[in-house]
């Protein structure tokens, strides 16, 4: 699997790029290398995200998680969950968090 120098869905400063997060969700491509996802799909998230089963970071190849975690702006508290499928949830007007989230629906 080819891995890019810069992760596809993250900007140079380590922030998630909303349009690319949406592209990953709908095209079903990896947020790291931008190639088609496999099965299982991996998500990285803080313990809070894991607890609420809603992740900001887009889906990843299991193999790309290691590459992502090696980047300087990777959160050291990130945990990994794997799933077969996920729901893509766009924010509502009244939500304090205006980023879309991913909800794994068949955890492995």
């Amino acid at each position: 699997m080819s891995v890019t120098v810069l992760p596809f869905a993250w900007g140079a400063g380590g922030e998630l790029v909303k349009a690319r997060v949406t592209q990953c969700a709908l095209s079903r491509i990896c947020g790291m290398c931008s190639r088609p996802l496999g099965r299982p799909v991996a998500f990285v998230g803080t313990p809070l995200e894991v607890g609420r089963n809603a992740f900001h970071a887009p889906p990843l190849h299991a193999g790309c998680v290691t590459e992502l975690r090696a980047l300087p702006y990777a959160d050291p508290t990130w945990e990994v969950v794997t799933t077969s499928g996920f729901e893509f949830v766009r924010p509502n007007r009244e939500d304090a968090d205006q980023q879309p989230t991913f909800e794994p629906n068949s955890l492995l």
Partner: protein
Amino acid sequence: MAIADVKEYTHLSTEEVEQLGRELDAIRTEIEESRGAADAAYINKMIRIQRGLAFAGRVALFASHKKPAWAAGTAMLGAAKILENMEIGHNVMHGQWDWMNDPEIHSSNWEWDTAQPAEQWKHSHNYVHHQFTNVLGHDNDIGYGILRMAREQKWHPVNLGQPVYNALLAGLFQWGVALHDLDLEAIRKGKKDPKEMKRQLKQIVKKGRNQILKDYIVYPALSGKNWKTTLTANATANVTRNLWSYMIIFCGHFPDGALHFTEEEIEDETRAEWYLRQMLGSANFEGSRLTHVMAGSLGYQIEHHVFPDLPSNRYPEIAVKVRALCEKYDIPYTTGPLYRQYGQTLRTIMKLSLPNAMTSDDSPEPPSPSIDRGRKTDAERPTRRQETGAYMRKAAS
């Protein structure tokens, strides 16, 4: 028509739009929570039927020199291709069945019986078309880069040939779709990344070659001395699938009542506004259960666009609720018999081959009087793009 105009058109306040969104969320949650064994049984049954039809069709064509065997084999093979592309492949690649955790029925590894590589379909359809539905300048499904389908699009003398381009697109639809993600408009304008284009072309050539090899060399060869009649049967099955899928797809967004939008209006839209745009940009058609299954459940195009990743077998029950919401909020729910929806689409193709001044607008009247909410007029808005197809795939390289 911009989304701001639509809000006036639909006379809904911001709070009413958000309330509609919450009611659609509730429908979604209900389906997600009840998704289970019956749904899994449905898709497994569809795959069994499809494979049975394909097998029986191929076997019948061993005797393709006899007219009844040719007719039966062609019919079964055509039906199998339609079922595979529409109800199975298209929906599996949306991730509608990923929750089953089935290694075979999964969006990541389904490759379908048509010339376009699955990876490119998931970009051009799942992302570009579903995210930017009917947005001029973004959604390449508006006329597939060769047809003028909206009055907002600038007329050019080349549009006079639309009836011919349309007939060619219909008959060769799988090859038109195969080239869809290349984005011919971007190539024409020199905006396509050559490296990405080369990578995509390589994929298309490989997939197309395998399709040709399968239908026009291997299976005819297996028929021995009946190779010629098997070849014509396979070609007929492919053309049948092309015509049917073209008609179904065009009926999803081009009958009267399905609206077009402009690109500056989609920035920062909320989930509820996104729902609204999907509902107003899509059109359903009526038909029997069999018709809907063979159409890949795209007779429920409105429901499919609102919930593209929910199992397709649940769209009929979702449609009852979505239609009730449209009535409650007095917003259009565009539907009608298949012949009428396609008739309107065909009429639009013919009319828009001519300049706007020579034809009339067929948009239906709004269901409620419009209300001035103080939004910007067209003159106050930034200049809009008037053409389609400039979207480029921006993959990291």
